[in-house]
């Protein structure tokens, strides 16, 4: 198949479709055509409001998708009614989807538009929600949104976070030539790829041995905005693993060092440092506005809250970790680095038993009580910069290839496990629990601002 156009992030309303839903939707629509409805949550985004698809209702041909009175085919009234009732009851946006021929460009036909104008005002009134239409080709998407406030707006882009981070528009973006600084890099990524990096907002959670390397390289790659989250300060024992850190930096916030390094690497970068734990509401708010998250903190609480954000706000992430087992007698076990791609709607960290609920409870204690709450006191884990570099490089290469559409396989999102002592590199596919309360439509997937990360009640 021809290479898909690479589109930098666009300003305006966007729709994000989890990879699994997109795969199911594509199989339903292409090449024979079909109809479907997406239900979507809402969230604010860095470039405009976001719709977050969490469930797909496919229309059965000849029963739910029938010859139309005006056009070729249309959704049956009973199908529309049932889907609209779900949208109303679940406070979800209703998006009717169909496909057109072609590849890189798509737009609604006059018959489509007339159909919207006949049907959507009433549907919006019935549901009380945003309603609209979405027309797709395998490489392009156009949307017509009728907003709950009574206005109407086009969809700027449709985002599919999979093995590649796809961004579909009605027609391919035109490239702005990359500056001379990134000329060599743009020869691989293309001008649109370089512009994509510049428009992305990326978070690094944890600015220690791995996070420090991530920040340095993300800034040099030309990522436009970095959100830096860590509440820790630099200790003498950190210095061998922190990029460009010196003795004078002992006691400095890790966010300050990361910001200094990023600014030096790229003076035009926009930085949002948050010297808090990730579960702090300010950090979670910034995280929910990102396009990509690097999870480089090893606490259960960091894993839990990033996992929650990935699933609830449909933001892809990579978890990066290094495990060096050394027992009290000095025996060194199997060292491994893990780079786990966290896709919304796919087996999450809870499904893969990568968060310990008791450790999470301890992490959530106030700082003064956290150490005492551990029945067995913790000891510092071994940490070596070369192993951190191995894990960080795997995560960064995945990110840059995904963001610019260069991975061979849109579906490949296996974790990469390096075992340096035996020089093995293995892939592990994530597993998914059928009714996970985070990564399935039965849970918080795509619920955005109405989900539990920010859902509150009065005490």
């Amino acid at each position: 198949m021809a290479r898909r156009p690479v589109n930098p992030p666009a300003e305006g309303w966007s729709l994000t479709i989890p990879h699994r839903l997109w795969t199911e939707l594509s199989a339903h629509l292409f090449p024979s055509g079909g109809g479907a409805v997406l239900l979507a949550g809402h969230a604010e985004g860095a470039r405009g409001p976001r719709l977050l698809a969490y469930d797909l209702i496919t229309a059965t041909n000849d029963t739910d998708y029938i010859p139309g009175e005006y056009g070729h085919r249309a959704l049956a009234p009973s199908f529309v009614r049932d889907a609209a009732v779900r949208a109303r009851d679940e406070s979800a946006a209703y998006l009717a989807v169909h496909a057109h021929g072609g590849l890189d460009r798509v737009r609604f036909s006059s018959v489509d538009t007339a159909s919207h104008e006949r049907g959507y005002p009433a549907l919006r009134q019935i549901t009380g929600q945003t309603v609209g239409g979405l027309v797709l080709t395998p490489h392009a998407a156009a949307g017509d949104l009728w907003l709950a406030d009574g206005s109407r707006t086009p969809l700027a882009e449709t985002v599919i976070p999979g093995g590649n981070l796809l961004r579909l528009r009605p027609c391919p973006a035109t490239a702005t030539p990359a500056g001379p600084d990134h000329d060599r890099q743009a020869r691989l990524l293309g001008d649109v790829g370089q512009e994509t990096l510049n428009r992305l907002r990326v978070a690094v959670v944890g600015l220690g041995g791995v996070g420090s390397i991530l920040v340095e390289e993300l800034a040099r790659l030309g990522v436009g905005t970095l959100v830096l989250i860590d509440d820790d300060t630099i200790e003498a024992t950190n210095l061998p693993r922190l990029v460009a850190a010196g003795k004078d930096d002992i006691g400095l916030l890790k966010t300050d060092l990361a910001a200094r390094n990023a600014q030096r690497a790229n003076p035009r970068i926009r930085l949002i440092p948050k010297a808090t734990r990730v579960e702090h509401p300010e950090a979670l708010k910034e995280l929910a506005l990102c396009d990509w998250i690097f999870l480089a903190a090893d606490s259960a609480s960091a894993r839990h809250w990033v996992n929650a954000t990935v699933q609830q706000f449909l933001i892809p992430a990579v978890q990066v970790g290094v495990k060096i087992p050394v027992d009290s007698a000095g025996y060194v076990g199997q060292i491994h680095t893990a780079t786990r791609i966290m896709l919304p709607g796919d087996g999450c960290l809870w499904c893969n038993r990568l968060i310990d609920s008791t450790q999470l409870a301890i992490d959530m204690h106030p700082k003064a009580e956290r150490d005492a709450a551990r029945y067995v006191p913790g000891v510092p884990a071994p940490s070596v910069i070369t192993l951190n570099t191995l894990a960080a490089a795997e995560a960064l290469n995945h990110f840059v290839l995904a963001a610019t559409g260069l991975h061979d396989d849109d579906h490949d999102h296996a974790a990469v496990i390096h075992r340096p002592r035996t020089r093995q590199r293995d892939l592990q596919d994530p597993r998914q629990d059928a009714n996970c309360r985070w990564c399935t439509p039965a849970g918080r997937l795509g619920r955005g601002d109405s989900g539990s990360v920010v859902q509150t009640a009065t005490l």
Partner: protein
Amino acid sequence: MNTLASAITEAVEAVRAQFTGHPVEVVPDGTGGVFVTVEDVSVGPSYAPAVTWLGFQISAAYPDADVYPHYVGPLSRTDGQSHGPAVQSTGWRGQPALQISRRSNRRDAIVDSAALKAERIRRWLADQ
């Protein structure tokens, strides 16, 4: 005004129902969870005093997070022995306490709810 996830307000109500007749103090922990103290809890004749308070945190990550550890007021064993495993002297929220470290292996959010686990902890302590 303090705002909490609905899962936590529901958990607090379940604790109140589990310990009907006991005063239950609920204080926000500052990060979206609560500290809960159930007063006048019986821990049986093995301890002096035989009645004390039972405290725990229901964190903002509940119900994904376990409720762990639990705390009770300082207790002495009436048989003169020292406390066994999983019970150690500590402090909780500025007061002396015994910490009871009983994790929920293969945790089930329903079976290991804050209310049911609090009662299991009370019984476990009484049986020691």
